[in-house]
């Protein structure tokens, strides 16, 4: 209880330090690195195993490595944003992939689990990048700035290839299982509304709460092929992803702003 009151007092003191009747000059340029959580609002699934080879349904901590908003007019401006998903989602998909492969093949074949960076094409792609431009309209209300936006950009979603040579139990036979795709990355158009609320600590610095709701086409394709290495006979199955993905993101940012100096 004592700690609670001490924290409250410290927050109050901080607020009094930074507050005041000062009038803030509107930002003309805003830099905003931040961190948030990226969450798909729906799932596009075609095959449990190939679902792990694409980051289409990935969720996790997203780093907004770069964001710069420029306001040529006091209210109207645009923002360039660059955001990436952390690599931890690759580890989770890799574990799920190994479990599903073991369940599917383990009874009849010896399956060796793979690590995220072990394959003949590319590692489990996890760094889903989103880059684009938004049109912003800024409402300055003293310390608080409300910025609704509309975003247009590109999201790059990784796709992995895998191949496994598996020995059949109680047999000399060997089976080659391949999951192949034409592209390591898919660049998809992404768009949607977003909003930021900035609390200005002083003339230059502030903190922001950001939220967005984007959508993009769910495009991916894989080919599964099983080849009996003795007879060389093979069976192929295509898996094509389609539909629309909806993604939400909520995060916090540190704002560094520059204002026009009064003459």
């Amino acid at each position, binding site marked *: 209880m004592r700690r609670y009151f001490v924290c409250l007092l410290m927050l109050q003191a901080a607020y009094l330090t930074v507050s005041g009747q000062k009038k803030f000059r509107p930002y003309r340029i805003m830099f905003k690195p931040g961190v948030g959580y990226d969450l798909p609002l729906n799932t596009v699934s075609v095959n449990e195993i190939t679902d792990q080879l694409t980051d289409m349904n990935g969720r996790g901590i997203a780093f907004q490595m770069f964001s710069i908003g420029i306001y040529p007019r006091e209210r109207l401006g645009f923002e360039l944003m660059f955001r990436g998903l952390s690599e931890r989602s690759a580890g989770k998909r890799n574990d799920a992939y190994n479990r599903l492969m073991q369940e599917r093949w383990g009874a009849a074949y010896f399956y060796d689990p793979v690590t995220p960076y072990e394959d003949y094409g590319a590692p489990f792609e996890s760094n889903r990048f989103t880059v684009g431009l938004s049109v912003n309209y800024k409402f300055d209300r003293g310390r608080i700035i409300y910025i609704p936006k509309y975003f247009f950009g590109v999201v790059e979603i990784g796709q992995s290839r895998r191949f496994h040579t598996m020995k059949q*139990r109680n047999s000399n036979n060997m089976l*080659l299982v391949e999951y192949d795709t034409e592209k390591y990355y898919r660049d998809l158009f992404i768009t949607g509304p977003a909003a930021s609320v900035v609390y200005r600590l002083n003339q230059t610095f502030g903190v922001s709460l950001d939220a967005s709701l984007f959508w993009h086409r769910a495009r991916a394709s894989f080919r599964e092929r099983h080849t009996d290495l003795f007879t060389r006979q093979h069976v192929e199955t295509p898996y094509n992803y389609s539909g629309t993905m909806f993604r939400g993101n909520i995060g916090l940012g540190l704002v560094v702003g520059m204002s026009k100096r009064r003459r």
Partner: protein
Amino acid sequence: MTKIKKILILLLVPLFADIFTSCCNCEDPELLLYTNTTLELQHLNNSGQSAIVAPENKVLKEAYGLRIRIGCETTACNRGRTSFFINPAYAFSCGCEAPIQYHPKDSVTGLKVITLNDFDALHPAGSDITARFKMFSGYVFTDLAGYLESKPPVFNAHGVKNIVLDALLMEPAAQTGNHRFRVEVDLSDGRVLETETSMVELL
């Protein structure tokens, strides 16, 4: 005169190339010879993740294999130098040749697996069933004859090692039973190495 100069330059190109790629600091390697002398056979059980020597003479016929071990020995002879101008070690990488090298005096020119009892209705005792066996390497099953197309190995200072081939029975007989096999290895100098396996029950 110009023509003579061009001809002289062309004739000297191989010499210059050899000098260019020679490493002055490399010692001449000692070239020795080895010969193929013995043949040993073991039954393999490939039921598991990799083939092992069968602990008992009962193996699933779909998982049966034959380990063919060709023993090699060094000879008293040295191999003659083959470099035309200068020792052909490569200067740019300064990768000198191994100081001691064992080259083959003879090579394997033929390899057969003969069944000593009736294998199936089409292969009575004494039949050549080599084609029923394959080697697996580099994601591909190859005929035993495929080994013959590869160059015989050159060993270095670690010494001469045995040549080991794991021949897997890819087309077993339909019925189970007891079997024995004889392997015949033809060598380039006219010798034939041959030996027989013990009895194995293919389940």
